[in-house]
Each structure stands twice: as C-alpha cells, then as structure tokens.
C-alpha cells in the first residue's frame, strides 16, 4: 500500500541531521594547518581545470601550492564563482583567496593581503569593428560587462561606464562579441589568454585601462594575521630562489611577479582541442556532477521538503491559530523570495548567527525549505479535497488524529497531489543547478568550468541542458505509472 509516511520521512530527516554537523575551524597544534583556498577554477590561465586531467591548475594555483609547501600548510582547494569568494572568506568557509585578487583601498580596509605575486595592468576589450573606444575616457556613457565584486567593475564605473554584471570573464567577452555591451575592462594577462585560447577574432584589445600598475595578492581575513605573515615569508623565499619567476615564465613567457613584467607577456593557447573533443571529454565530469551533485541534492531535498510540506499543511489546517500563522509566514516568505537569495542567506548569511552549514547540507537546507513552502499549499488542497465523511468514519472506528491522517486521509490526498508535486520535483531538479553558487560541485558547474577554459559555450551548455532534460523526462515517465498505481481503486 503506497502511503505517505511522515514518521518514516521524519526519521530520514533526523538521520540526516548528522550530515549537518557544524564545521569547526581547522586549527591543530602539531599537524600541518589545514588551509582552505578559495578560487574560481574558471579563470584561465590563473585558475582553471586542466582540459586533459580535469585537475585544478593555473598560475595562481601553482603559486598557491608553492606557498603552501613553503609554509607547511595542508591545502584544500574550494572552487566557487568569484562573487562567492569574499562572502566565503567572511563566513569562514575558506581561509585565503588565490584568484588574482587586486589590492584596492576598499579591500584593504576589510582584508589582509600578502606581498603581491602578480603585477599587471588593465586593458579594454571591444568588438573588432568598434573604433569609438581606445581609452578609459571613451567609456563614459558606454556599457561594460564585469563581475560584480571585481576591482575592474569599479574602474569601469569610475570612468563613467554603465556596468552590467556577469558571473565570470568568459560570458562578459561573449556579450561584447554579441554586441550586447560595448566593452569589458580586465587584466591584460587574462585577456591575452582568452584571445590565444579561443582564437576569437571578433574582439580586440582596444587600449590600456589607465597606466596604473595593479598588484594582485592572496587575501586573508583580518583576524588571521598569522597566515598572512607565513604567506609573506613564503613568497619572499620563493622570489629569492626563483620559483615564482619560473612559474610565471611557464604561463606567460615573462616574469609578472615583478613590477613591469606584464608588458612582455606572451600567452600560448592553454587548450587546443577540437570542439568535439572538448564535448566528449566533458561528458563524463558533467555526468559525475549530475550523479554526485544534482541527483542526491534533489532526492534529499524533495524527501525533506515533503515532510515540511505535510507539516506546514497540517499546521495550516490546525485549529491552533499560532501554528496556522507560523505556517502562513513560512509559505509566504518562501514563495515571495528568490531561491537564489534563500540559498545565499542559508550559506553566507546564517554563519553570522552561528549556524554554519557545509556547502552540501546548506544546499539541501535551502532547497528543502523552498520545496516545502511550494508543496505545502498543494498538500493542503489535497487534504481538503478528501471528503469530511472520511475523517468521521476514521473517528468512529476509534482512530486518533495521527492514525486517521496516516492511514486514511494522507493516502487519499497523495493521489490528488501527485501530478502537481511532479511539477515541483521537475523544478527542483533544475533548481539544483544553483547549488554551485554555494560551492557544491554539480553538472552545470562542470560545464561552466570547461566553457571558461575552452570558450565552447554553445555545445557545452547545450549538453548541460540535454542532461537536465533527460533526467526530467525520465522522472515524468515514472509519474504516469505512479498516478495509475495510486488511483487503482478509483473507477
């Protein structure tokens, strides 16, 4: 007999609570200190996945590894979009950012910086046939594409440009190419790498973004001066023994770790695979992301979400006013705010009040709450559609509230709720792609990572879409038999 068994689901919920263990800062006296390094992984040649091995690599990664070895740290790399890196540092999910973070006055007020390990200058990228823009002054009134928290956004704004925000550098270049924005301001090294890798001849470097030399360094929390000191010592040693210069030569054909070095940068393509090869190579990592990320996220969130939905629905139907109000507020907040905001509040916001979830549990918490809020009204409507005579019949054979709910009302409500809840499940599968923003590796993240390194946006994103579609299609196939099974008693 299929029936919703809230108690069983509740048990699953409590079983999971072990997963929600709070992460303590990883300090230890004798063992090498665990240092969590935040980096984009989609910013070649600084931080990206090697196309052949799918391992994290790049200039910043190698510098970071050298520093870690010198300082005796046990490094753990955490990949996240650039805009998530500083919140992750603030909320103690990472200890250092190694991602070409430019030292600015504003950032200096909030974070500690190591000795710079890259000196670069900004350039302006425009479409090939755009001759209007050759300097920062020409950006006035124009639109540029920038990542929100990068210093280049501020440079563009200061020049009077209107800024459109993008998730990372690659998509920004796409917008320029497509004529949706006029320009993009970025680090000359990153731009040269992009041009070499993509072979893109639709955009060009139109000019320098001012003459200031920019310094990029490792960023730490203000409360962590010891790490900063150890990093400085390590960088000094690595400069002295020529390690940094060697790493830089490997990537840029010049030593960008000293002032003025970035003028001579010569970037070779970091990837020369054919489009078909790229798609073939990425299919498996994307599948792994789907199986390890999206699918378990969906399953756990849906199960917990259903428990929440049933609880909220029963609270809405309760004669206790307080329960009704709490459930109403919950449903209203969930339905009235973007899932993205809910995810960020759970992951980046709650640590401020001591609720510190790891990425995976944080994603499950946010997605479960979201599903629960949406499904609650569906469940409530289904319960209300069960005739009141059914409650009475259950009552007169001696059942209490929970027995009649579990044995009589909910199984009948389930039949009515399955089609709309099927839609909720399909939405959830697709929404699970947002989990990458709170540092959970998943399918779409894999597509983004490879797309950044290879600029094969269309084939990779199409393949990501295909994966999602196949999963959703299989789920919708299963829905028919389930509906028939639940309805087999009806004529």
């Amino acid at each position, binding site marked *: *007999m299929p029936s919703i068994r809230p108690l069983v689901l509740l048990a699953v919920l409590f079983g999971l609570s072990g997963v929600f263990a709070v992460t303590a800062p990883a300090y230890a006296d004798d063992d090498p200190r665990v240092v969590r390094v935040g980096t984009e992984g989609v910013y070649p040649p600084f931080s990206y996945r090697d196309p052949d091995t799918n391992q994290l690599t790049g200039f910043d990664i190698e510098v970071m590894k050298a520093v870690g070895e010198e300082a005796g740290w046990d490094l753990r790399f955490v990949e996240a979009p650039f805009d998530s890196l500083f919140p992750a540092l603030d909320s103690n999910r990472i200890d250092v950012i190694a991602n070409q973070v430019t030292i600015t006055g504003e950032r200096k007020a909030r974070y500690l910086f190591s000795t710079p390990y890259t000196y670069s200058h900004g350039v302006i990228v425009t479409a090939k046939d755009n001759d209007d823009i050759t300097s920062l002054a020409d950006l006035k009134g124009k639109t540029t594409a920038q990542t929100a928290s990068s210093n280049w956004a501020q440079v563009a704004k200061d020049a009077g440009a209107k800024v459109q925000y993008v998730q990372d550098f690659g998509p920004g270049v796409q917008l320029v190419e497509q004529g949706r924005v006029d320009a993009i301001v970025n680090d000359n090294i990153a731009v040269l790498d992009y041009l070499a890798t993509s072979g893109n001849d639709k955009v060009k470097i139109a000019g320098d973004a001012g003459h200031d030399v920019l310094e990029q360094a490792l960023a730490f929390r203000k409360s962590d001066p010891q790490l900063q000191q150890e990093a400085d010592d390590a960088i000094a040693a690595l400069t002295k023994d020529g390690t940094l210069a060697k790493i830089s030569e490997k990537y840029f054909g010049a030593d960008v770790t000293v002032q003025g070095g970035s003028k001579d940068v010569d970037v070779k393509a970091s990837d020369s695979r054919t489009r078909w090869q790229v798609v073939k190579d990425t299919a498996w990592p994307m599948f792994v992301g789907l199986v390890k990320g999206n699918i378990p996220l969906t399953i756990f969130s849906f199960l917990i979400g259903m428990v929440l939905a049933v609880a909220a629905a029963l609270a809405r139907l309760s004669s206790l006013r307080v329960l009704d109000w709490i459930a109403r507020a919950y449903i209203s907040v969930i339905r009235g705010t973007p899932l993205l905001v809910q995810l960020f509040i759970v992951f980046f916001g709650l640590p401020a009040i001591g609720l510190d979830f790891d990425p995976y549990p944080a994603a499950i918490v946010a997605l479960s709450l979201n599903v629960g809020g949406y499904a609650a009204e569906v469940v409530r409507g289904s319960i209300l559609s069960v005739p009141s005579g*059914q409650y*009475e*019949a259950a009552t007169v054979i*001696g059942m209490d509230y929970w027995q009649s709910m579990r044995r009589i009302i909910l199984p*009948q409500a389930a039949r009515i709720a399955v089609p709309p809840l099927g839609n909720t499940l399909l939405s959830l599968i697709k929404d699970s792609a947002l989990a990458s923003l709170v540092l959970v590796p998943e399918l779409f993240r894999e597509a983004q990572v490879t797309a950044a390194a290879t600029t094969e946006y269309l084939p990779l994103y199409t393949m990501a879409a295909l994966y999602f579609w196949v999963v959703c299609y299989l789920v919708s196939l299963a829905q028919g038999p389930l509906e028939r099974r639940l309805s*087999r*008693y009806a*004529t």
Partner: protein
Amino acid sequence: MTDLIEVHGLEKSFGPHHVLRGVDFAAPAGSVTVLLGPSGSGKTTILRSMNVLATPDAGVVRIGDSSIDFSRPPDRRAIKSLRARSGMVFQAHNLFPHKTVLGNLIEGPVQVQKRSPDEAAADARALLEQVGLSGREDAYPSQLSGGQQQRVGIARALALKPEVLLLDEPTSALDPELVGEVLAVIRDLAAENWTLVIVTHEVHFAQDVADQVLFLDEGVVAERGGAEVLTDPQEERTRRFLARMLDAG
C-alpha cells in the same frame, strides 16, 4: 434489568439553531430504537451525540458502563471509551475508497483494537458472509453497487464488536431497488438481538423491527411508544408526518 443505553437531557445548538432541547430516552440490550421525524428535527444529531461526532452542550449519554456528562468539557479518554461502545453506519457509507472490502473491515480491529490481522480477517470473512458479500473481499468499494457498499458499511461497523449499532438513514442515499437488500441485513441483525438505534424514513420497515419509536420534532421527543406509534399516533404532528411519509412511499 438496567438499560444498555441511557440518554438524558441532551441539549445542542449550532449557532442560533437550537437543535436538541432536552432529549431523554433509554433502551435495553437487544432492543431496536427507531428515531423518526422531519428533517432538521435533530434525529441525526442524537446519533452523533452518542459517539461524540457532535459534542452536546449539556446532557448525559451512557452506553454500558461508559458515560459522559456533557455539562463539563469531556476528556479524551472518556470520549474514546464511549466511542468504543458503538459502531456507526453512515448515510453515505463513507467506506475508505483506497482500501479493499477486507481492508475496510479489518482497519479498526487491527489498527485500533490491535488484534492480529489473521484473526481479524477471519472474523471479517464471517461478517461478509452474514451480509451476503462472500467472495468480494478483494474488491474496492468503487467496484460495488450502492447496496453492496452499504452492506460493507454495516459489516465494517460490526467488525469492531460494538455493544450498540447506530444507523444514520442507512438507505436514504440508495436507489429504490437497492433498499431491500440493506433492510434485509438490518432485519437479520434485529433478529439476532443486536442493540440498534436507527434513524430512518422507512415507516413500514420501522413497524416491523421497532421495539421503541421516538418521534422527534424541533429538538424534542414529541411522541414515544412501541411500534403502535406508527399505526396509531396520538399526536397531531406525528400523524401529519406519517401521512406525508406514507404518501411519498
């Protein structure tokens, strides 16, 4: 011998509607009590007060050694105890549509009375035979005719082995040609000395089975007596009601 059922001073209002205005009656074990009267006269509310589907505002209900004085808010255990004394047959049968016939019958015995499923199923099969539905154990209610559904409803109420069976217009929702089979089952129960309280409009049937007839009007017992009330009513309003019912029948 003391009566099995005692109802005393029952009062109930739904908002401005004063539905019961001090109803008293008693019934010995093995007797058949028929509640009769125009719609809105409070018959069904009396039945529903006896198993606390409706909570009276005042009055006492006793079945066997369970009783509740409704002048105080009843506690849960008292309600449970009183409910366990009776079984109820609904006008609209209210069978559980997602359970088979057998599933409907053993639900209460197994889930509430914690009897073993095998034993409950054996009893259930005997009851199905009694109501003439042997072989339909595995059917779902939707696969049965209205008369068969109501006979399952009766068997489900009996499966709990109650002391009293309350029947709320058990044939009113049925097509006329199906009424007979249900009445035949109830007649058998009366013959087997079950204690029955029946709300019905079937006057001829009531004449056959009733040991006691209560004629209700506007929340009070307007006339009471044996089956002769139905053939020789003393009260004018009883007479008018019966004339109407017999015309319609």
